[in-house]
Each structure stands twice: as C-alpha cells, then as structure tokens.
C-alpha cells in the first residue's frame, strides 16, 4: 500500500476491502463487497444516522414487546377465568339436558320441567359471574365470545325446548336473555347464538315425536309438525351467510321431514283424534 499517494490513502483506508488481510477481520465484513465497496460511501452520512438509531432500538424494541407480553398474559388469565366459568355452565347444561331426556321416557312433563327449572337458577348465577368477568374489559365481549359460544348455544336450545314443552310456542331472543338474567347493554345473548340454539332444539323434536307416539300420544305429531313448519318458515325469512348457522338451518328440514313421516304414519292408520280441537299444549304432558 505504500505506493499509494496520500490523496488515496483515505480511500484505501475506507476501501480496505481491497486488501486481503483486512478481510480476515470480521468487523470489515460490511465493506467486503468487492465491486462497489467505495461507492457505498456515497451513503456515509445516512448510514451513520441509521446506525445511531439502531443502537437505541433493541431496548425500545424490548420494551414494546415486554409490554405486549404483559398485555397478552393478562388477557390469557382472563380467558382462563372465563373458561372456568364456562365449564361450570357446561356441566349445568349437561344436568339440564339429562333431566330433559326424561320426557322421552314418558315422565310427566311438568315434573321434568320443574326439576330442570331449578337448574336454570344455577345457570343464571353462572352467567352473572361470566358477565362480571368479561365486564372487566368493556367492548371486548366478542374478543372472548368464542369461549362461551357453543355452550351458550346449547343453553339456548335447552331453554327453548323447555319453553316449548311448557307453552307450545317459541322462546324469543329477548325471553331467552331474560331467563338467563342477561341484558344486551353489557353482556347480551348474541342473536346468531340464539338462532343456532333454536336449530339445535329442532333436532330434539323428531325423537320426541317418535317417543310420544309410542307412548300413545297420537296428537303430538300434528302439534310438533305445525310448530316446526312455522319455525322453518320463519327461518327462511333470514338471509343467512354460508356459515355454521346456515348449516344448522339446512339440517332443520330433515327434522321436519322426520316429523312429517311420523305424522303420516299415525294419520294413515287412523290413529289421529279426528276433527278434535287443539288440545292445549301446556297439558300435553298429562295426555
């Protein structure tokens, strides 16, 4: 290098990628590129600004991600609390379901309902608890919605089935909310969950009809058919997306068909009480 003129010394110093020995030094790595080593220096000022800001960044990067971790851990804890409550809701629902299954065994409906209703209060308490847990972070109902969605759909289906056994009519969304002690302003019942729950309830009806007829209640298919036809017609008022609810609704027609078949079987054999006035469906359990 000694033959270099002083004017080039600087250049040689900065462009020491031209000297082989210096490439052994890892620090010079950035200058190693053979073709344009010198040209890189056009950027020298911006590069240095760049490096200085980079020097600060790791700590501020850490800071932000630490904050994220804390935030996400908090939401994880909340989710755990939600899941605890939801699993309790799930087991209450299971109890109610087990109780309601007795209607298929011709137990008197009022007795069955009585027993199931006592469980509803437990459920109500659990939903209140859930609302309190979720209430801690307003506006985030739907962030955690997935955690109680399917359980709530089952709850709705139980409630709707009970309501139907009792009154012969459909439990409305508002009524379902009231039964669970929810109000839509802070912790409500999602309409789509409600509708899905109603679809689940319809799945229960074919079996109910079959068992009622076996037990000798020949008027039951007519009542169920009327209800289910109405329900199916009502559902067709909705413009559904291609989602889970749509799928469940599509399944409803099989329930309807099954009930129609039962009704047909009963009618063709002359088992229906002909021309009889509609029996109050509230009393159907006693019939």
């Amino acid at each position: 290098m000694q033959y270099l003129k002083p004017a080039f010394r600087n250049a040689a110093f900065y462009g020491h990628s031209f000297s082989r020995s210096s490439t052994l030094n890892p620090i010079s790595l950035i200058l190693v590129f053979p073709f344009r080593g010198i040209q890189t220096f056009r950027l020298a000022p911006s590069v240095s600004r760049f490096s200085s800001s980079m020097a600060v960044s790791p700590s501020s990067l850490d800071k932000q991600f630490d904050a994220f971790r804390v935030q996400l851990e908090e939401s994880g804890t909340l989710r755990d609390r939600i899941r605890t409550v939801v699993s309790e809701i799930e087991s209450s629902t299971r109890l109610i379901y087990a109780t309601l299954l007795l209607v298929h065994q011709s137990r008197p409906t009022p007795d069955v309902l009585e027993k199931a209703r006592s469980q509803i209060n437990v459920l109500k308490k659990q939903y209140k608890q859930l609302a309190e847990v979720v209430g801690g972070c307003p506006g985030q109902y739907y962030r955690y919605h997935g955690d109680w969605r399917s359980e709530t759909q089952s709850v709705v289906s139980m409630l709707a089935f009970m309501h139907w056994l009792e009154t012969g009519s459909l439990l409305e969304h508002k009524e379902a909310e009231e039964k669970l002690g929810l109000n839509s302003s802070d912790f409500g019942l999602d309409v789509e969950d409600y509708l899905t729950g109603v679809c689940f309830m319809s799945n229960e009806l074919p079996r109910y009809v079959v068992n009622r007829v076996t037990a000798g209640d020949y008027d039951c298919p007519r009542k169920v058919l009327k209800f289910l036809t109405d329900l199916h017609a009502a559902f067709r008022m909705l413009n559904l997306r291609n989602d889970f609810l749509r799928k469940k609704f599509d399944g409803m027609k099989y329930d309807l068909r099954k009930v129609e078949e039962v009704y047909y079987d009963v009618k063709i054999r002359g088992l229906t009480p002909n021309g009889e006035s509609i029996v109050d469906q509230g009393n159907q359990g006693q019939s």
Partner: protein
Amino acid sequence: MFAFTVAGTNIQSSRKRVRTMATATATSIDPSMKDAFTRYAEYLNDLNDKRERIVKASRDVTMNSKKVIFQVHRMSKYNKVEVIEKAEKDLVAVTDQYMSQLVKELQGTDFWKLRRAYSPGIQEYVEAATFCGFCKNGTLLKLDEINKTLLRLSDPSIEPLQINVLDYLLGVADLTGELMRLAIGRISDGELEFAEKICTFARDIYRELTLVVPHMDDSSDMKTKMDVMLQSVMKIENACFSVHVRGSEYIPLLGSNDPSSFLVGVPDIEI
C-alpha cells in the same frame, strides 16, 4: 323492505305446505314468531351489510398497502431518500382514503366482533407502515405510533379505531418476508452494511416474537407465520454468508487483474 317481501312469500308457501301436509286447522306462521324473526332478519341483514362493507374496505387497504411495499422495494442506493419519501406519501394516502373507510364502519364492540373481516387489511397496513418506518429510521414502528396516526381519522366523540396487539403482531410477522426481499435486493446492489442491519433487525423481531407467540389468542395462525419468518431470517443470513465468503475470494482477483476498477471507483469518494 326486502325482508318483508321474503317474509310474504314464505308465509304463502308455508300456508300451502301446511294445508297439504297437515290438517285444515293449520294457518300461517304464528304472528309473534313472524315479528320476532322479522327483527332477527333485520339484525342479520344490517350485520351482513356492514361486514361486507368492511371486507371491501379491508381489501382496499390491503391492495394499496401492497403498493406502498412495492414502492419501498423500488429503492436503489442512489434514490433511497426519494423512494422512501414517495412511499410515505402513499402510505398517508392509504390512511386517509382507505383506513378512514374502515374507521367509519367500525366502532365499539365491532372492533372484536368483525375483526376477521378487517384483520387482513390491518395486517397488511401494519406491514407497510413498519416497512416504511424501518427503511426510514432503522427501527420498528411501534403500535402506539401507528395508532396515533389513526386518531385523526375518527370523530373525537366516538371511540377511535385502535389496531389491537394481535393484528399488529401478525403484521410484524409478515414484515420479515419483505425484509428478506429487501435484504437480497440490497446485497445485489452492493449495500452490504444495510443488508447486515436488515439481518440484525429481522433476527430481533423473530426473537421478540418467539416470546410473545405462546400468549396470543389463536396462535396456530401465528405459528405458521413463525416458521415462515425463520425461513426468511435464514435466507437473509445465508445471503450475507455467501457474500461474505465469496466476496473474500474475489478480492485479490479484483486487485491484481483489474486495477482499473479501483480507479473507476475513486471519483466516487466523497471524503
């Protein structure tokens, strides 16, 4: 209106159906049931319309954020400043024109309810914003800083749209893919130092995210992103390695066989 006409035809068909299938006592749908379902139909229609509008707005955000990213990739070592300035300007335009549409549609519980409808757009936007930010300052643009720029889009009276941590992290995860492309481009342009910076930066992001991912809500999506990210980081590292190794081989050749190139470089020195 639409719901009503649909309802009308349904009642008729159901009436017919009931007559043919059930006894003559059957009539049209229970009026209370019909009222209730009219309300549900209205609710669902509104919700679906809104979701559709948000999906559209999100798509616009995605498309235009991509353009910003491409603009950044257009940089070469000579026009860096101009290219980044242009990209930033484009990004501001995306914010004003398309993000504002999203902000208009979303408020309150919608942020989480309809997140799936707008999340892809937001992620792409975060990617574009952080990409610009890195090229300009060499640091990761923070979530708070992005959110600050969104504040002016919404009416101060309503709760403003704030990008949530999850979408931000998903966007940052995508950023490494772009960084990889940028690094390769910089290497072939001879900006080795810059490529090294990118490499360090991408590694930092990967490291930070590794710690955060297990706490994320639906980490399955993020886990695949982490795998892709590691691939990107390794690609950058391998590229740097290749240049490092082959570059050292090539130098003596340059020095001995082609001294003129050295002289060609001289006028470029600005010291």
